């Protein structure tokens, strides 16, 4: 079997091969590591490799498989966004602040995926502290989009998305605070799911904005995402905000039946900000769903416009507190020869954090400060409820809401870095979903001039199953999710 077949295969296919002993986990891991070694210099998607550990874990997985005890993910290689704490493995969050930080613990997600049999290959680059939409704010350098090395992969899970698209691993983890799984998934032509807030434990995930952060799967298909989501999900006694909800077998529930499914099309998601060519692709995807029996219904999410303002108060405010622990005292970067405590704080933090992170800390601090709390933070929390109510009202008449994941295809590196507000606009269609705590998914919807477009599907709270099934049906009826970038191994 050619390497490119393995690097293209779905988790279900790989699992069949592994169970049939057509390939060993060790061979699979070696192939992935080889691909990373060959292609990562061009992409900068992976910043830490754990090759030896991965090979040893793979051999262990092979033993399990040979005993016939394999589970759906046993022996499947995986990369983690470098926001997940990994015991004994450097966890940087894309920041100079944590350049040498080695946690003494695994994140719950890491532990659960390990328990499900996956093999961790390494850690993916990301926007610093998950703050960015282009993966250009990383201390470890920008990540390139494998579809066009002059373009960004999206962010903040840009390293994860680029790695997956480039065949580095069949599964990657991401986190999504305002679109950080869905937007890079869209820009890199893969499937990415942000689960319902509370579905997946946040314990051990380096916090950006606690009431918005949620980890999720990124993979080559909805089915692969479903396998991974089943393994990641569930209540965690260590995370008070994790939900006490039964976790279905998301993959087993995929039947592709969407006849009669009511899909809401929010007028506000097809506004002037949307690239007309992206609109065409989205409409094409929607008609596919209609052809499959779904019913398209125009709906209104009238306060969509306010999502950006609301998000850029709440997320920085929470971040300003979450990032206060990086003070140069117990872990992380400390400046040289501090003359006193204030000097220690000021220099350690200013040296350790990059520009975007500092800007958001400043904005958040401002929004919470005396005299501004009511006008900014409290107001934003009120508007948050209004935005969430828009969704609740819409879901009285529809089962799924669909629209674009991002207003554009991947843009050129460096073009929006100087203008934070232009960058923030990239998340215009994804932010509201985090504010409302709903599940959202991006699935490929074809290409524009060789660059991928993503269709976003938004579900009711804790109803990931329906959006996964909708995406699954689309992926059965189209081949968009099988498109690969003209890059490295896949070069035609």
């Amino acid at each position, binding site marked *: 079997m050619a390497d490119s077949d393995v690097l293209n295969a779905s988790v279900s296919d790989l699992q069949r091969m592994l169970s049939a002993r057509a390939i060993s986990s060790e061979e699979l891991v070696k192939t992935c590591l080889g691909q990373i070694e060959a292609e990562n210099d061009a992409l900068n998607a992976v910043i830490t490799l754990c090759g030896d550990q991965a090979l040893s874990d793979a051999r262990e997985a092979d033993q399990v498989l040979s005993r016939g005890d394999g589970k759906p993910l046993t022996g499947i290689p995986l990369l983690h966004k470098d926001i997940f704490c990994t015991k004994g493995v450097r966890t940087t969050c894309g920041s100079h602040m944590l350049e040498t930080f080695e946690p003494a613990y695994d994140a719950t997600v890491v532990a659960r995926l390990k328990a499900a049999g996956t093999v961790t290959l390494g850690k993916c680059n990301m926007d610093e502290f998950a703050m960015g939409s282009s993966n250009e704010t990383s201390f470890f350098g920008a990540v390139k989009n494998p579809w066009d090395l002059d373009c960004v992969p999206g962010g903040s899970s840009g390293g994860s998305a680029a790695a997956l698209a480039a065949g580095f691993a069949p599964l990657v983890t991401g986190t999504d605070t305002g679109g950080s799984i869905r937007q890079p998934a869209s820009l890199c032509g893969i499937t990415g799911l942000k689960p319902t807030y509370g579905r997946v434990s946040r314990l051990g995930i380096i916090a950006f904005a606690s*009431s918005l952060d949620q980890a999720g799967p990124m993979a080559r298909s909805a089915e692969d995402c479903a396998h991974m989501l089943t393994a990641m999900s569930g209540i965690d006694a260590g995370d008070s905000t994790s*939900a006490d909800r039964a976790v279905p077998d998301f993959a087993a529930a995929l039947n592709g039946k969407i006849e009669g499914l009511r899909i809401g099309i929010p007028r506000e998601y097809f506004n002037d900000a949307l690239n007309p060519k992206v609109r065409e692709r989205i409409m094409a995807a929607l008609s596919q769903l209609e052809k499959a029996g779904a019913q398209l219904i125009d709906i209104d999410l009238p306060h969509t416009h306010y999502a950006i303002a609301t998000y850029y*108060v709440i997320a920085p405010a929470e971040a300003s507190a979450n990032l206060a622990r990086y003070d140069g005292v117990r872990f992380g970067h400390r400046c040289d020869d501090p003359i006193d405590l204030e000097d220690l704080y000021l220099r350690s*933090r*200013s040296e350790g954090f990059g520009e975007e992170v500092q*800007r958001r800390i400043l*904005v958040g601090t401002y929004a919470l400060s005396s005299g501004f709390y009511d006008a*900014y933070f*409290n107001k934003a929390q009120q508007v948050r409820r*209004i935005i969430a109510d828009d969704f609740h009202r819409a879901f009285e008449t529809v089962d799924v809401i669909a629209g674009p994941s991002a207003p554009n295809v991947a843009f050129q590196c460096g073009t929006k870095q100087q203008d934070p507000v232009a960058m923030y606009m990239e998340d215009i269609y994804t932010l509201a979903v985090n504010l409302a705590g709903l599940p959202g998914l991006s699935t490929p919807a074809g290409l524009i001039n060789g660059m991928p477009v993503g269709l976003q599907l938004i579900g009711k709270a804790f109803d990931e199953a329906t959006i996964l099934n909708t995406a699954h049906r689309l992926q059965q009826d189209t081949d968009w999710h099988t498109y690969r970038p003209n890059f490295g191994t896949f070069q035609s």
Partner: protein
Amino acid sequence: MSVTPEDIEKVALLARLSISESELPEVTERFSKVLDLVDELNTINTDGVVPMSNPHDMTQRLRADTVTSHTAREALMASAPAQASGYFLVPKVID
């Protein structure tokens, strides 16, 4: 609402970030752009709306009062930038 460089300096001190004189004008300008963006919030009526701190109206679970952590100090302090005799060290603080 526009902010002055002095406002930025005040906020930076609260956040323990140092901004050099030379950076201050640009930081202020970009900060102001973000602030202009979020000032849109003032155009929506929120009278009587209960602020939403968390997406689901869940309540706090409680943990049994048992000791479950058995600290390995060496492992946890391995990444400490300055330590001695089991203490983290900072420059002398005078109360």
